[in-house]
């Protein structure tokens, strides 16, 4: 939102304090009503049918009686709803979900107190209520739709952007929580509920142990959708985030196994020891199998992306399709689809990102975010609707007991496990951390869908289970979801660092990795770093060569990081109007000249300038800059940035070489040599700190850096100015390409060594000149960039 609009918008509450939110509320209720009205499917279609038949009835009768006679009147407007019914309904629901999301963010006060998921469930309740009032049966969240269409985008989004480093560092802890924690929860809740059922008597005594255990296993799993929805908004520190989130992802395997196990055996009735052993084997198969399936598809995707350099447009499609196939393939064999999806995303990401273009990367990112956002919204709304719809059987004792046992089990589990885990961790988990982990164990739609899948014949008490689960879900999402934010603030839990990753940190992270590996080798200790190093070396030697196209397969990580940083900064620079404002990254006035080693001071012959001369020079400079800015404006922001890895790069390099040659030839006529090409950083630093000294980057072969073609004061005309001052009489040379300012790379005519004395001579007076003639330049005529085209 451009700053101007935001400003106006923000003043509204001051003028009409209560009105804004009330107005919006009314507006959305209106829209809601309209949508529900038109979307009420059966009613709509039945009316349609009636009207259709009504309209066409007389005609057909006419036809029969007057067959030879006339044609029937041409139906100018007819109503055929059945034809589009399914897509229409789906689109309507998605539209409703998106409008709701939009609405919440327009009400900032509300969205800061109540997490989005709660609001969406409330909306679902309202919609469900409305539909019921109308007399129709509200649609229920079908497990099919949920597992096949709504869940995968969210998981893929999470898996693709999983921070691998933190994940692997904490893998042991995460696995402990996911596997042991979930098992503990399942058995604790199941067992105690069975006890309660037996004790309670008449209505509940029919619930047998296996059913209770099954229920326990369903309800004990922390839900990734709910966790993501809530944790996303509280910006908690990365360690806690990855612990709870990782747990919610990895416990899927446990849940799947337990679910199938108990479901199978509740029909039989008893469990033997062999069954338990088989269960353990099954668990290993399910989890490892899921990971293997995911990894295979990930490698396939990476391999495919190697060849997409000519068809960039469909690159994102491969990422999505391969991942979805991984999920479906895993589901075919009842393996853990979630783990397959995570594995696929995590495996393919480093290779795919090295192969695809920057635009494809952006596309993938935005599509994933968009789909997962829509899914997320739909899930919560449907949860609300299903609550209104679903057959309920309320049993006070059962529901309350379930709730209490779930909470108690979670707390005991986390505390107990942390006690054991802390013995093996360097960074111990404090009690604050434990509280957040326990509190963040939210249940969600997966549990609901799993219960919904239960067969009523085998599980006569299914409706009671459903009610209990919905209660627990509501409790965790509403109560825990709403209170976690103030609690996080109250307990002063560390929040996420918003700092950008600096190149120093990157250098030292790599340095540390090697250092620790070295120390481990010296100690003869084959630990964590040793194996990580071996894996990296294997990756570099074999895997990268296969899966990454071209030269990038050999690119070290540090250089890749540096490129990314360069690119970001270059984009920032362009977006900030081409250097007229300082990029925010470097608010200081430190520039490269402060860092380069000092050279002995030169005798700088800066001649005295008369006022008239100064004016003349100022005018010339101003016109130069003006012409440059005009040329700049005609550039499209898309052509300004060349993607280094796209085609046509070679042509640009060739062109640049040609220009260099021309420049060389021209410089032969000048006596003052131009300064040598600087490293990209120097150029940008000068750009940043010296608003009027715009530099060019040199085309080095090994760094395909972004070339932003801006005018350089070291272009022929300004050099000639200095020349003129220094040695009167030499004619300024007209540039060979004629007409206006051209972009040239100043190149050295002598070998670098000899220039050390001269270059300073040339650079210094020029910069001094720039500073004396500190003309702010033409008035800022550039249009403001609206939204940046990249986030």
């Amino acid at each position, binding site marked *: 939102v451009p700053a101007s609009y935001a400003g106006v918008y923000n003043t509204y509450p001051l003028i009409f304090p209560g009105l804004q939110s009330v107005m919006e509320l009314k507006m959305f209720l209106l829209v809601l009503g309209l949508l529900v009205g038109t979307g009420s499917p059966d009613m709509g279609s039945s009316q349609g049918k009636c009207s259709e038949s009504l309209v066409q009835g007389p005609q057909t009768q006419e036809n029969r009686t007057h067959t030879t006679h006339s044609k029937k009147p041409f139906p100018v407007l007819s109503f055929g709803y059945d034809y589009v019914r399914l897509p229409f309904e789906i689109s309507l629901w998605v539209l409703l979900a998106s409008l709701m999301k939009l609405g919440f963010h327009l009400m900032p006060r509300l969205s800061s107190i109540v997490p989005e998921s709660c609001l969406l469930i409330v909306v679902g309740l309202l919609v469900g209520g409305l539909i019921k009032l109308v007399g129709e049966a509200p649609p229920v969240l079908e497990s099919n739709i949920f597992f096949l269409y709504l869940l995968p985008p969210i998981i893929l989004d999470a898996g693709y952007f999983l921070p691998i480093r933190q994940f692997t560092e904490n893998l042991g802890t995460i696995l402990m929580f996911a596997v042991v924690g979930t098992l503990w929860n399942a058995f604790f809740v199941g067992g105690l509920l069975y006890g309660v059922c037996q004790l309670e008597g008449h209505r509940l005594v029919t619930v047998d142990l296996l059913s209770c255990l099954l229920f326990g296993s369903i309800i004990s799993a922390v839900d990734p959708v709910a966790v993501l929805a809530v944790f996303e908004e509280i910006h908690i520190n990365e360690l806690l985030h990855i612990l709870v989130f990782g747990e919610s992802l990895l416990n899927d395997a446990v849940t799947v196994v337990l679910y199938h196990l108990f479901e199978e055996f509740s029909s039989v009735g008893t469990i033997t020891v062999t069954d338990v052993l088989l269960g353990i084997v099954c668990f290993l198969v399910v989890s490892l199998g899921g990971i293997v399936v995911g990894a295979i598809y990930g490698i396939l995707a990476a391999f495919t992306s190697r060849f997409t350099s000519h068809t960039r447009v469909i690159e994102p499609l491969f990422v999505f399709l391969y991942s979805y196939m991984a999920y479906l393939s895993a589901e075919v064999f009842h393996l853990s689809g979630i783990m397959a999806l995570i594995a696929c995303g995590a495996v393919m990401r480093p290779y795919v990102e090295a192969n695809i273009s920057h635009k494809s990367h952006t596309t993938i990112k935005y599509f994933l975010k968009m789909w997962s956002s829509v899914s997320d919204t739909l899930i919560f709304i449907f949860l609300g609707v299903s609550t209104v719809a679903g057959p309920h059987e309320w049993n006070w004792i059962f529901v309350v007991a379930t709730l209490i046992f779930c909470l108690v089990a979670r707390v005991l589990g986390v505390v107990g496990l942390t006690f054991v885990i802390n013995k093996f961790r360097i960074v111990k988990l404090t009690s604050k951390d434990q509280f957040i982990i326990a509190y963040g164990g939210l249940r969600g739609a997966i549990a609901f869908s799993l219960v919904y899948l239960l067969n009523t014949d085998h599980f006569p008490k299914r409706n009671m289970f459903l009610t209990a689960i919905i209660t627990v879900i509501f409790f965790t999402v509403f109560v825990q979801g709403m209170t976690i934010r103030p609690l996080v603030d109250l307990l002063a839990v560390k929040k996420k660092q918003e700092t950008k990753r600096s190149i120093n940190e990157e250098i030292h992270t790599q340095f540390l990795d090697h250092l620790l590996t070295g120390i481990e080798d010296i100690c003869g200790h084959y630990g964590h770093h040793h194996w990580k190093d071996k894996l990296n070396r294997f990756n570099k030697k074999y895997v990268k060569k296969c899966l990454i196209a071209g030269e990038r397969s050999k690119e070290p990580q540090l250089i890749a990081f*540096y490129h990314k940083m360069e690119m970001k900064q270059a984009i920032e620079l362009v977006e900030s109007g081409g250097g007229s404002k300082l990029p925010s990254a470097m*608010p200081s006035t430190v520039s490269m000249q*402060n860092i380069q080693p000092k050279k002995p001071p030169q005798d700088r012959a800066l001649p005295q300038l008369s006022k008239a001369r100064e004016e003349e020079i100022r005018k010339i400079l101003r016109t130069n800059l003006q012409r440059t800015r005009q040329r700049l404006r005609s550039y499209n922001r898309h052509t300004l940035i060349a993607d280094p890895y796209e085609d046509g790069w070679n042509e640009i390099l060739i062109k640049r070489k040609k220009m260099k040659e021309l420049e060389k030839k021209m410089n032969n006529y000048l006596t003052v040599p131009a300064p040598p090409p600087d490293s990209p950083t120097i150029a940008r630093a000068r750009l940043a700190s010296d608003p009027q000294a715009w530099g060019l980057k040199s085309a080095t072969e090994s*760094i395909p850096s972004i070339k932003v073609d801006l005018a350089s004061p070291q272009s022929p005309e300004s050099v000639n100015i200095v020349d003129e001052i220094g040695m009167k009489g030499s004619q300024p040379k007209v540039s060979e390409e004629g007409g206006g300012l051209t972009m040239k790379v100043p190149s050295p005519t002598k070998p670098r060594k000899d220039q050390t004395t001269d270059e300073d001579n040339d650079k210094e007076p020029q910069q001094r000149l720039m500073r004396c003639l500190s003309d702010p330049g033409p008035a800022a005529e550039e249009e403001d960039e609206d939204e940046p085209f990249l986030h």
Partner: protein
Amino acid sequence: MGASQSGPVHMFQDLAYKTGFSIEQIKNLHNRFIYLTQAEDTLRREHLENVSDLALNPIRRQIIEAFFDKRNMGEKEKGCLQEIGFEEFVTVLSFFRPPKPHTVDEEMKNIKKEKLRFLFNMHDTDNDGIITLDEYRRVVEELLSSYEIMGAETAKAITDAAMLEVASVTVGQMGPDEFYEGITFEQFMQILKDVEIETKMNIHFWNLDTRTVQCGK
């Protein structure tokens, strides 16, 4: 334990007290020391170079030098030793010991400072207390040395960017004629304060059996 063994045991206890390792760990490290030096008394550079896995490490030179650097021995001297004894060996390794649980914040800050000092000494090869542009460039070149493509330009560019960043963050405003000498220790601490050194720069000194390779975590 007889009188003949009280010597080393006593030494171990002293070392344990001084460096914070446990007696068990000191014993294991002693075994490793003997293995590395082939039962000689002192450790020299060649002994460390013989460690096969170290050959693939891009910064092995600096790691080996760190063991012979006087600044890491806790004394105020500067310079290099030619050979070190077991005590120095353990002293250097104690920089990588994970902090004990229930360490107070003050203590943690000290530990962090010590570890950062170790890193700083590794970069500052000419002992002048500042990491200059050239020294930093050498660090980057070493890091990239294990990859085939490596123009000198790339390392220079990266080093320039890094130094610029340090200067911008730590000094902020500099006039156009001022010269930034290099990274001092305080500035080094400042730029790396977000990298949690006290938790990252550790290895677990568990199963250090030299004869059988054990996969400890």
